[in-house]
């Protein structure tokens, strides 16, 4: 599933697809933004790594924070979130996964909140009318929820098998996310320096 999300035909952020309604366009936005996919993957791994799956608090925090952030984008006061910030959230969550120690659920909720805020604030809609904007953001919000839910659910299902190679694989995925995020932050700092 992770490889499907990260497959090459991923476009740049804020691209809308011609002929698609606003809701679907909004729903696809996080899936077509590599930085968002990275954060969502890291959150799914973080929440689902240590069964039993405890979703209520992290998912509630994610839902509230993402709704708030998406709503805030309607004020027009924020143009987007720097890729380095998104990468830093993914880096932190990925590091937690790579280390592999179980964390209290409130810590996982904090990661979910940070990720939700970062992605939400970076998902402003470019639509013309108010209704179109709301429709787009609703699609985005639902897609975000589905992604985190799916990610955590399937990671937890895998982790429940209690096979060492699965646990190692999850930790390796976390370390890959850390590695990718480190490079993205370095790229961003280099770009800023020029």
């Amino acid at each position, binding site marked *: 599933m992770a490889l*499907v999300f*990260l497959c*090459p*035909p*991923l*476009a*740049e952020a804020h*691209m809308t*697809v*011609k002929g*698609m309604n606003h809701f*679907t366009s909004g*729903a*696809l936005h996080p*899936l*077509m933004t*590599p*930085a968002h996919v*990275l954060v969502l993957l890291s959150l799914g791994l973080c929440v689902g790594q240590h069964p039993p799956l405890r979703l209520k608090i992290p998912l509630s925090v994610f839902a509230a924070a993402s709704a708030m952030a998406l709503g805030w984008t309607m004020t027009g006061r924020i143009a987007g979130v720097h*890729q380095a910030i998104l*990468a830093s959230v993914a880096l932190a969550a990925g590091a937690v996964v*790579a280390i592999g120690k179980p964390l209290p659920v409130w810590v996982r909720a904090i990661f979910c909140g940070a990720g939700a805020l970062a992605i939400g604030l970076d998902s402003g809609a470019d639509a013309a009318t108010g209704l179109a904007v709301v429709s787009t953001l609703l699609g985005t919000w639902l*897609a975000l929820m*589905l*992604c985190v*839910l*799916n990610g955590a*659910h*399937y990671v937890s*299902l895998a982790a429940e098998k209690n096979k*060492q190679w699965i646990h*190692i694989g999850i*930790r*390796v995925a*976390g*370390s*890959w996310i*850390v*590695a*990718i*995020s*480190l*490079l*993205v*932050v*370095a*790229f*961003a*700092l*280099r*770009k800023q*320096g020029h």
Partner: protein
Amino acid sequence: MNPKVVSPRSHLSFLLALGLLLMMSHTASAHSETGGVGGFVSGFRHPLTGLDHIVAMVAVGLWGAYLGAPAMWLLPVVFPVVMAFGGALGVLGVRLPGVETCIALSGILLGLAVGFAARPKIWIAAVLVGFFAIFHGHAHGTELPNSANPITYAIGFVVATGLLHLSGIAFGLLVRWPWGRVAVRLAGFAIALIGFGFLFDLIKA
């Protein structure tokens, strides 16, 4: 005969997956962006373009498999991070001395470690591998093109490096058989020879 019982969890999994697939079905007709695609492909190809890098990555995997647990699973977790750290240093223009020499030495030392079936303490192996990982990462970092889409490039780069490492581990798992141990050790010596070739400029990267 008892009917097959399907757990509620399976229903939930199916519904969740269906929800995602319904969303993903539009991706197939979405316009692709050459920046993103090119970045991923470019990043994926980069670690594969240098024989000196390839042999060292494979040697790390071989050695990890030879050392067994916990080294075998510790190295694939730690290595990408340390290498990315070196890559970040390279991207930021931080200079490191003797990068190409250290890369050649990595092939030699890691290859000999596998060839001679060295089994040092895990922290020694981790420090050695980590040391060389920084130089490999740094070399890649300095070569990264300015025009690349950073995130898809980084994804391609890390995935390719990780797969090289894992291929080394897969090959290294042959050590469970007597003939496999011989094959792995011979591969280690071959890697060391290649490293010598790079060190004395007999082979060009």
